[in-house]
């Protein structure tokens, strides 16, 4: 099977190269059979990469430890679902996974894109094939072939890193990859539009679903990553501004900016250059993220896979960046806006400032991430840029973004009058002020927390007002109950109201983030039967009694479980436990420890706060346990916000019920692609 897998990779490389060269050269325009061949090469590459994927999975499932990758990331006693997910646990497998998923997306894009965009599709095939060829090149020529064999066959594999043996890691990487990979399709359409000079809004319509899909998967991937870090890493938080975390946030931020600014191009024919730059930038940031993750050039707690392939990504990043922006530059004169902004008090202006802040946050995160390298290059001094830096720079920007989240929907397109502004803003401003008074009455004085909660109230007021007014109108017209009217309102304009639901999700994130300002940490050393007390920010007193440590064997590990009896304000809440897991593998019939003992935290979660228990270790090999008890307010709202955001995203992209077509205007950018004459590519 490894031979088949390797042949399949080489086959995919050759066919992909054909598709890339023919597709990007534009020679297919004079020869329809070449155009068909380019598109078909995408499907052929998919078939070949699926063969390679099946070959690797077979090696994993059959424990073929002669394959270096299988031996490095699995063992005989690894649970089946982790054997399955080991496909993307390591560098080589994840590169193949990336290529396979991109290939699936490419084929789907070719199959699902309406025929009216047919003249773009060979270019799209060319771009996606070029990206796939790059990934396959890294595998077959960059020393990352997942089918590489060992000179001997070990009795058992090394097993999977215990921190990756978590259900979050089965789902989180694929979600993140789907987001990263999905960006390639809008990028391919952007390049296709530039190459073909078909720079109307046609390509934007063609990528609408793809941008939403990749944005949504990135959001899911980031949130799952936060959840994994919270439940698995044991430090009591979910976001540490680690370079790898930052790398996933960057394309999400620029994609979010694009999802807003694209509306301006669709409705007013403005920001064409900006939107193309955002799509190209987002793609480059997704490659940059991969470079950060793979190269180890910047230290990260998440860098489970580091090697020299990072420099392949750096080279690809440079080539793709130079090519894309040169192409954009050559088309610059064709990208004149069709209209001008008419007023500062307009939704276009609000969206522009929203874009400024989103891209500004992305820049500041990127700047902070690479600043240690820059500092070392300039001063020769190594420095660390950690959470204190990012919080100082980004919290004010985040608050500005939160404010614009509420402001944008309240302002009319083109120009809003004072009366219009007064009518729209009164309700949300009053809501924000009331929230502020309540927060002050509760004794909260932290400036940032106060501002975040006030602005959250303002955004909530905006969303509720929008839903209420729309539902009330339906109620008056049809006599529908308000709840039904609200549901039908969403159904009639899913993009708009789905977007508001996304805003609610973002709002929950912000509220949850404020909770971290009140986090309480306490360590304790307890013998069985001894207790300690922890006071939560809400004033509750937790009494935590150490019950003892039990040790037992499970499938591939020895578990040491420390159990704590929990009572809050004198009322028993039950037992919680935190574990140490010592994983082992079998060698020569003997158990051999494979990793250092890992920690499994105990978490009790409710709407207000999480009680987070970490069994740090034992004193002198006895049941006398050292614990860290953490109380994290409002963490539940992060996960709930993620769910709401996903629901909003799905609503937004759900087929049917789309927006009304934009009214035709002179020189309108909304001309459909089929109305354009066939143009010769570059």
């Amino acid at each position: 099977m490894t031979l088949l897998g390797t042949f399949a990779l080489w086959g995919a490389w050759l066919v992909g190269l054909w598709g890339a060269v023919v597709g990007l050269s534009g020679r297919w325009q004079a020869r329809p059979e070449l155009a068909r061949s380019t598109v078909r090469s995408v499907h052929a590459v998919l078939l070949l990469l699926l063969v390679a994927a099946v070959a690797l999975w077979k090696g994993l499932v059959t424990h073929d430890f002669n394959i270096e990758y299988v031996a490095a990331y699995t063992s005989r006693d690894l649970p089946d679902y982790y054997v399955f997910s080991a496909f993307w646990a390591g560098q080589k497998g994840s590169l193949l996974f990336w290529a396979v998923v991109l290939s699936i997306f490419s084929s789907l894009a070719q199959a699902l894109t309406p025929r009216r965009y047919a003249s773009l599709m060979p270019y799209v095939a060319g771009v996606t094939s070029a990206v796939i060829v790059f990934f396959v090149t890294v595998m077959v020529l960059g020393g990352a072939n997942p089918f590489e064999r060992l000179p001997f066959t070990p009795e058992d594999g090394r097993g999977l890193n215990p921190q990756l043996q978590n259900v979050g890691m089965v789902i989180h990487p694929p979600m993140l990859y789907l987001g990263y990979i999905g960006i390639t399709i809008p990028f391919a359409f952007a390049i296709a539009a530039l190459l073909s000079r078909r720079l109307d809004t046609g390509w934007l319509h063609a990528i609408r679903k793809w941008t939403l899909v990749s944005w949504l998967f990135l959001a899911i991937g980031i949130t799952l990553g936060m959840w994994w870090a919270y439940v698995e890493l044991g430090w009591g938080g979910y976001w540490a501004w680690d370079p790898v975390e930052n790398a996933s946030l960057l394309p999400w931020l620029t994609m979010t900016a694009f999802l807003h600014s694209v509306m301006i191009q669709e409705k007013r024919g403005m920001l064409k250059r900006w939107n193309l730059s955002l799509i190209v930038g987002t793609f480059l940031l997704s490659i940059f993220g991969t470079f950060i993750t793979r190269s180890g050039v910047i230290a990260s707690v998440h860098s489970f896979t580091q090697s020299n392939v990072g420099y392949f990504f750096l080279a690809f990043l440079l080539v793709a960046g130079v090519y894309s922006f040169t192409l954009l530059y050559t088309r610059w004169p064709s990208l004149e806006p069709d209209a001008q902004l008419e007023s500062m008090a307009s939704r276009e202006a609000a969206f522009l400032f929203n874009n400024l802040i989103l891209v500004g946050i992305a820049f500041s995160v990127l700047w902070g991430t690479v600043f240690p390298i820059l500092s070392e290059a300039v001063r020769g001094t190594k420095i660390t840029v950690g959470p204190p830096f990012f919080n100082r720079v980004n919290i004010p920007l985040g608050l500005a973004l939160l404010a614009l989240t509420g402001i944008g929907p309240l302002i009319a397109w083109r120009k809003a009058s004072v009366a219009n502004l007064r009518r729209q803003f009164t309700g949300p401003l009053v809501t924000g002020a009331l929230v502020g008074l309540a927060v002050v009455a509760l004794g909260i004085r932290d400036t940032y927390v106060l501002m975040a909660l006030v602005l959250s109230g303002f955004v909530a007021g905006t969303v509720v007002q929008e839903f209420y007014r729309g539902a009330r109108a339906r109620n008056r017209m049809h006599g529908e109950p308000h709840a039904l009217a609200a549901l039908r309102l969403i159904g009639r304009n899913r993009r708009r109201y789905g977007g508001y639901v996304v805003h609610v999700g973002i709002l929950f994130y912000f509220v949850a983030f404020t909770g971290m300002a009140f986090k309480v940490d306490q360590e304790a050393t307890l013998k069985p039967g001894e207790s300690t007390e922890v006071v939560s920010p809400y004033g509750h007193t937790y009494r935590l009694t150490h019950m003892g440590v039990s040790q037992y064997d499970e499938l591939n590990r020895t578990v040491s479980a420390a159990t704590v009896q929990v009572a809050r304000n004198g009322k028993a809440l039950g037992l919680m436990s935190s574990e140490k897991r010592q994983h082992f593998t079998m060698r020569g019939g003997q158990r051999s420890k494979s990793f250092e003992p890992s920690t499994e935290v105990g978490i009790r979660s409710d709407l207000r706060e999480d009680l987070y228990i970490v069994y740090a270790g034992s004193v002198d090999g006895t049941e006398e346990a050292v614990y860290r008890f953490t109380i994290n307010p409002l963490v539940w709202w992060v996960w709930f916000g993620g769910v709401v955001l996903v629901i909003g995203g799905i609503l937004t992209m759900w087929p049917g019920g789309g927006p009304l077509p934009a009214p035709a205007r002179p020189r309108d950018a909304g001309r459909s692609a089929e109305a354009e004459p066939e143009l010769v590519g570059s």
Partner: protein
Amino acid sequence: MNRRAFLRGSAALAPLLVVRAGSAQQPLPGEGETGRLRDPSAVQRRDPTSELDNDAYIQALEKRLKCNCGCNLDVYTCRTTDFTCQTSPALHRQVMALHEAGKTADEIVADFVGRYGEEALMAPKPEGFNLAGYLVPGVLIVLVGGLLAWRLTRVSAPRPAPAPEPEAPGTADALTAEERALLDDALARVED
């Protein structure tokens, strides 16, 4: 108590009953003398914590200092998270020693910078070249924002023709949510 905690607790306690039946030497958790673990090597060895470990002042101070084991975490987070790390407990002991010697937080931080270099700080000091790290994003945003505002003000300056009435600017998008919903609905019925 949530289901997860309950299941974990149950799973953790169940084998203890078996152990008790088979071995009279092993006390049940929560009873009698502190028992020895069956396999002490399966758990990290820790020193007992002290009152100072929970001192908010010490915690805040250690969150300013980076552990140099390569973990990318601050000293406090590393020593209370990565229990395989030998470096952060040693750095913690240094902090405690300096604190007990009467040094202030800033003096302790300066001592760490003197020993381990500027990399010992979780965030660079806002001075010299580091100021670029702190200021460049904000300055750029303000500059671009200012430029944007200036241009918007220019392009939206009074025009020869009077601006249309804001209540009826001529597009569906300028309507209020209520008006928009009415229009959407009416058009949808026409389409049906």
